[in-house]
């Protein structure tokens, strides 16, 4: 079994003076698909941002392939293989679709953006449009495509299905599964739709008030309605 790709130990982080995450630990091995669940405002987004290096770090270590990256700026982490699809999409509103993609390729050759167009033909049609002109769902696609083009070894997905048509959701989840199972991408997924999350993830982490309150496999969670009711607040699965 390979050593863990990402190893988070005793992480505390937050915004300005506010500490949101407290003493949080978990590990992910290469190629693993980890689902992160939890109610609204429990710190899921904050966790992904902290791994990316966009929040204020208060303590603890984040090891990527054995190297502690917790003191690095976001750009250095990105160059070492962390990639993020943020909840708020955060596409570059004043850049064209194509330029958005080019901004994400790091030092790879320009023509790799064809990969993105194959994945989302819709983006190809809109390649000369400015970011702000895109529809909500198109922005979501662009954000995802941009992150994937950077070839991250650890991909952080924050509610990537939000605002997408059901059919696109299916395709996208399938694509994520392919990327992970090809073995060279580790994926952390935050998702509100329990079904989609459980179908995708091998293992699940439940957050409450900035702490990990449950860890286990998706199968275990799926079997335990009471747990779901307690921590996630949605009624039982149909």
């Amino acid at each position: 079994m390979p050593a863990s790709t990402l190893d988070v130990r005793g992480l505390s982080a937050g915004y300005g003076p506010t500490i949101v995450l407290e003493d949080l630990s978990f590990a992910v091995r290469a190629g693993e698909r980890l689902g992160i669940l939890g109610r609204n405002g429990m710190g899921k987004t904050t966790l992904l941002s902290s791994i990316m290096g966009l929040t204020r770090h208060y303590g603890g270590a984040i090891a990527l392939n054995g190297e502690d990256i917790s003191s690095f700026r976001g750009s250095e982490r990105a160059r070492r293989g962390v990639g993020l699809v943020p909840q708020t999409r955060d596409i570059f509103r004043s850049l064209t679709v194509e330029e958005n993609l080019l901004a994400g390729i790091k030092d790879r050759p320009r023509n790799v953006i064809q990969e993105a167009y194959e994945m989302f033909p819709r983006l190809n049609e809109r390649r000369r449009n400015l970011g702000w002109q895109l529809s909500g769902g198109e922005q979501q696609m662009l954000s995802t495509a941009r992150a994937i083009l950077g070839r991250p070894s650890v991909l952080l997905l924050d509610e990537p299905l939000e605002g997408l048509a059901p059919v696109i959701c299916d395709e996208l989840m399938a694509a994520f599964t392919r990327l992970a199972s090809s073995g060279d991408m580790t994926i952390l997924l935050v998702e509100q739709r329990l079904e989609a999350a459980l179908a995708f993830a091998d293992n699940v982490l439940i957050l409450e008030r900035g702490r990990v309150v449950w860890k286990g496999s998706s199968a275990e969670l799926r079997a335990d309605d009471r747990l779901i009711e307690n921590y996630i607040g949605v009624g039982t699965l149909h």
Partner: protein
Amino acid sequence: MKTLPATGGQVLRDVVGVVAIAALGVAGYFLFPDNLALLTRLIALALLALSLDLVVGYCGIATLGHAVLFGAGAYAAGIACVNGMTEPLTLIAIGAIAGAGAGLVMGTIMLRAHGLAQLVLSIAIVQLFHEAANKASAYTGGSDGLAGLSVGPLFGVFEFDLWGRTAYLLGLVLLVVVFIGLKFIVASPFGMLCRGIKEDPIRIRAMGAFVAPNLLKMFVISGFVAGIGGALAAISTQVVGLDSISFELSANALVMLVLGGIGTLYGAIVGTIIFMGFEHIVSAINPFHWMTMVGVLLIAVVIAAPQGVSGLFDRLWSPAGRGGRS
């Protein structure tokens, strides 16, 4: 059904604020009896800063041409005075009306544009007015200034003399009255609407309210206030110069306002006091280097108190106020 408790704390705070301003003014009268001309000028500029705050702080329209409104008031009062209208309160009224008129013109033009282009329109307008005042030297005295204002005594009793007591007290009363008036305006539905427009005009439209007419209305009110300031300056100085309708004055007013903190009426007054006081003290100590000093002051304020000085007070007042939600 649960009910909300009644509001009331705000009113008390406003009363305290107004009393504080009046007290400060009276204290100034007794503490600096020899500097009343300077203090009167300070009041006139505080009126300009207040008027600017209405537009910048409450409507979100940046302007570097606000002296147009001030200058309109000053010249209107000055020209009226030279032509035999010497009753001071009438002159103030004339200035206010002229300022409001200038506000209408300026607002109409400026509201056409957005963002930087709008800022630039304001500069262009003030330069054009400046040029016009210079050209119309038959009425304005051009670059020599409009001199020879002999203002009659206030209520027929109190002369505008060398010591400037009458002018100062008149100015102080005007300031307090205007301040109270503005407090009412910013707390009115209209004031709230303007705050909304500042944050998101599209949202306001979706609420079914027009944006431009309301902004224009605020411009007119702002002009009224600035016009009072201009008229006060004209009456107390008895000369109106081209500087009262210049870009420099507009820029200074904006600097004072930002220094004090925009969007609170207190900020306008605090900023004026700090800027004028600093300038006065430093230029008396070392006239050759005051510019560098003022520069350092501005940089220091941005670093120490990005919200303006009154923002700093707010922060000190309630340390948990800003970042403390957890």
